[in-house]
């Protein structure tokens, strides 16, 4: 993995838009220097820019969405938590000897209600990314997550999880500490909790590492997020025997929010501000907050057993097969 190279902040498909925007800025400056009135031209160019933005972002390919979902400036779990909660205190450690910075969580207040929020945390810069293993959680991370969820269940606090990981940490140490066991345990235990559980894919949902905090009665997903059984790169390497076929794999795997809505996996698609969540993090946070509050209101009308049944039924119905009777 390239751990040191700096990722470009500008994605290829964003370029025409960014170029147009900087041209508008240039014209504006030139006009001001020379005292010429170009307001009509500027208006036209801005309309063109808005149109271009809409065109680009409404027709993104799955692999372009994957790039957006991995955008280094895309709001992270901590960005959202800090933006949407009235109060927030991060809690640390799995009580088994580890505190994994790739999976963060704590107690918070959302619209006047105590909740537990947790999620994968990618770094905000290269150094932070290395410290947080690029959001790839270790077994200790999943054990911290289940400890916090257990806490939420005891105190009747709804659980809000935020998914943003390429997958669980693939290291020898993680294997020795039971990467598979830690995720498996969460999958089973999350069906036991009576408090509402809402899971939101905010960026990249990668494989079992995502699902390990992804069992809820509601699954939300930002418009340009992706959720996949295996990274398209890994899938291409295995099925096409050619990692360069990743964009083909991204299409075939059906990883976008609309695809997952069709398959019945996704409950609600959250629209992103035009230009993507990274172009307006606060706007994205407002959309997220609104959706979480609305979903919570619905779920809080049910009792604990009803919510468990709903969660069971949601997953029970997933799968496509035929059965001649």
């Amino acid at each position, binding site marked *: 993995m390239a751990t040191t190279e700096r990722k470009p902040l500008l994605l290829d498909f964003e370029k025409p838009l960014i170029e147009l925007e900087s041209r508008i800025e240039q014209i504006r400056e030139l006009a001001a220097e020379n005292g010429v009135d170009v307001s009509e031209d500027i208006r036209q160019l801005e309309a063109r820019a808005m149109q271009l933005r809409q065109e680009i972002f409404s027709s993104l390919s799955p692999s372009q969405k994957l790039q957006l979902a991995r955008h280094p400036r895309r709001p992270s779990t901590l960005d959202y938590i800090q933006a949407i909660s009235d109060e927030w205190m991060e809690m640390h450690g799995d009580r088994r000897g580890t505190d994994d910075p790739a999976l963060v969580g704590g107690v918070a207040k959302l619209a006047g209600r105590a909740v537990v929020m947790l999620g994968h945390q990618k770094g905000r810069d290269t150094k932070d990314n290395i410290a947080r293993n690029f959001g790839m959680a270790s077994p200790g991370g999943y054990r911290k997550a289940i400890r916090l969820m257990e806490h939420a269940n005891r105190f009747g606090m709804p659980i809000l999880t935020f998914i943003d990981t390429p997958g669980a940490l693939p290291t020898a140490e993680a294997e020795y500490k*039971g990467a598979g066991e830690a995720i498996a345990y969460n999958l089973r235990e999350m069906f036991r909790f009576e408090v509402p559980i809402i899971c939101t894919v905010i960026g990249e949902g990668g494989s079992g590492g995502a699902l390990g905090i992804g069992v809820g009665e509601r699954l939300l997903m930002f418009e340009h997020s992706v959720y996949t059984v295996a990274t398209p790169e890994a899938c291409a390497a295995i099925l096409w025997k050619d990692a360069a076929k990743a964009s083909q794999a991204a299409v075939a795997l059906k990883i976008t929010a609309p695809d997952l809505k069709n398959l019945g996996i996704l409950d609600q698609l959250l629209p992103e501000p035009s230009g993507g969540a990274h172009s307006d993090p606060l706007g994205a946070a407002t959309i997220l907050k609104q959706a979480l509050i609305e979903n919570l209101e619905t779920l809080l009308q049910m009792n604990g057993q009803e919510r468990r049944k709903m969660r069971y039924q949601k997953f029970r119905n997933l799968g496509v097969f035929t059965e001649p009777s």
Partner: protein
Amino acid sequence: MSLFDWFANRRKSGPISQERQERDIADGLWSKCVACGVLAYTKDLRANQMVCPECGHHVRVDSNERIRQLIDANTWQPLDESLSPTDPLQFRDRKAYSDRLRETQEKTGLIDAVQTGFGQIDKLPVALGVMDFRFMGGSMGSVVGEKITRLIERATQKRYPVIIVCASGGARMQEGMLSLMQMAKISAALECHREAQLLYIPVLTNPTTGGVTASFAMLGDIILAEPRATIGFAGRRVIEQTLREKLPEEFQTAEDLLQHGFVDAIVPRTQLKKTLAQLISLHQPVTPTHHQLLQLEAIALTSSIADSGK
């Protein structure tokens, strides 16, 4: 013929020629062990449950053979045999998934990668699922997920222990996210089975990796493994590439997992049936409380809704 004549004849014919040896292997009369290279009479190998009599190497067995080895004769009742895979994503890599499915079905005689059913092990009733590595590497898609889930749900109703013999490379990529969701679906059914205080024993055979390890393989009350089986979540190659670590030979073997506390016992195949029978008879179900009976009814209700919904 006297013993002496027999030896004399044998000496006369000399050692079996290389050519003759290869012909016999091709005929299936003799099998050469991939681990120790020793030739064994295939009939003897079968009688020893496909374990090399010389070195103890466990040759992979298919689901039919595994059921034959574990279940008392004439007690096997297969379940959901007609449940068939479809191609929900219209997936195509170098080959269309639908073609791959049809070819694999023809080649193996299986409909998908797991067989499930009720049967008896030394007269003790069990719900048994056996994954079959021949079917697309035992990968888990919708059919594997649904059959195992139904098996567990019915076992909960009948208060049977569940045994799943795992052999899988993980989630089936050709069914995308539907495959990933099966991990949660099966775990949900196991949660109810567990809540009803019933016994679940996964048997990890070579290989048990990926999404199967990160779900039902690791959720046993007691976890058994076959000698030398590869068991892990992340692939060995992925780990080596990601962090440029060189991994020791025994990494992700059953023996390694035993040492790190993730399996209870390594059981040679020839001892497996006996061991399972012993464990099941030691764990007779607790009489359900009134509260649990109500919950069982609720489960029965939800699963019948799920059945009728398909």
